[in-house]
Every structure is written in structure tokens, then in C-alpha cells.
């Protein structure tokens, strides 16, 4: 196994954990939603590295696009 791919794996997973932690920690709602979106986008990158481009496209479309739009609509509606 080439070590370059393993380095990308490990750094992507560490960034996913950091982004998820930030999504929990942030007090304001909008930065928290954006951190969740970043975590989802990095998860789609991880799926692409694991040779599953189908799941990567679906994750990037739903997790990073539609979920953020729906959360932003909900935040704009409630405040």
C-alpha cells in the first residue's frame, strides 16, 4: 500500500473529526451548520478515496447542498 494514500486517509479522517467537534462546540447556529457541511463534504472526499464515486456524488449533493439549504431556511424562519 502506498503511503501517500494512507496519509490522505488519515488527514481526511482527522479533519472530519475536527469539523464534527466544531459543529458541536459552536454557540451560534450558522457557523455550526457550516461546520457540519464541511464535515459532510470531507466525508464525500473520503468516499471518493475509498473507490465509491456513486456514494461520493450522492453525499456531496445531499449532505453538502440540500441539508445546508434546509438548515439555513429553518434558521432564517425561526429567528
Amino acid at each position, binding site marked *: 500500500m502506498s503511503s501517500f494514500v494512507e496519509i490522505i486517509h488519515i488527514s481526511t479522517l482527522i479533519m472530519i473529526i475536527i469539523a464534527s467537534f466544531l459543529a458541536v462546540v459552536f454557540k451560534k447556529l450558522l457557523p455550526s451548520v457550516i461546520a457540519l457541511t464541511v464535515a459532510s463534504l470531507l466525508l464525500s472526499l473520503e468516499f471518493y478515496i475509498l473507490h465509491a464515486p456513486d456514494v461520493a*456524488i450522492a453525499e456531496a*449533493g445531499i449532505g453538502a447542498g*440540500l441539508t445546508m*439549504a434546509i438548515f439555513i431556511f429553518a434558521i432564517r424562519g425561526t429567528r
Partner: protein
Amino acid sequence: MKEMSRIVKTVTNFVYGFIIIFGFYIIAHGHLTPGGGFQGGAVVGSAFALLLVSYGSLNSQKFLKKDILSLFEGFGLILFIVLGFSGLGITFFYNFLANSGGWFGNAAVIGVNPGNMNTGGVIPLMNIAVGLEVLSAFGVIVLTMASAAEFTKKKEKS
């Protein structure tokens, strides 16, 4: 929800068509390249979400009609079920068009090849049906939630 600034609207005007064309490309080439109906529909739905976020729900109701989208959704699901029941002579979801020589009926070359558009049997038709269903489903969800957010905000203000 109010419309955003001029920069966001200009970038949306540039990018919107390309995103929708890319989504329909993923749907139509589902039997040759990675992707399929669900993925392409999600891409087109995210384009609808981009339009809604940048232009606001009141302005984008001129381009996106909720009734037409829900009509498309029911049409896609019914088309998918009809295609599933069409192979019922042998089994449920039998691929009755594959290798028959008619529509999408050419035999695929075995091995690694660039691909022929006219292969796959019912799979491209099912891709189109599921893609139509998924894109209109996401469009209806996003449109309904945007107008509901607008409504609750106006109600709280009054």
C-alpha cells in the same frame, strides 16, 4: 427569505445552467459512468436549492412551480413501477429489453470499453424515472420549506 446580494445572483446566473446540465448528464449516462438516477437528481435538487437561497422564495416561484414538480414526481414513481411490472412475464424487475436489439437493446462489449449509449435494457429508462422522481422530490421539499420559513417570519413580525 429576502434575496441576496448582486454578486451571489450573478454567480448563480453563471453556474445554474451548468449544474442542471451536469445533473441530467449523470442521469442519462447512469448505465455507463458512476452515478445514476438518485445521484443526478440530488445534483439537480442542489441547483434548485442554490436558486432558492440566492433569489429568495418569492422570486423563484416564477421559475419553479410546486404543482408541476409534484406532478413530475408522481409521474416518475408510476413510470418506475410500470417498468418493474413490465417484466412480470418472467420475474418482477426482469430486464426484458436487454440484448433484444430494440430500444437500448444492443449487447455490451465484454471487458473494458468506452461504452455504448444504446445498451442496458430497462436500466436507462429506470434511471430517467428515478431521476425525475428524486429531483422533483427534493425541489418540492426545498420549495415548501423556503415558503414556510418566509410565512413564519412574516407571521411573527405582524
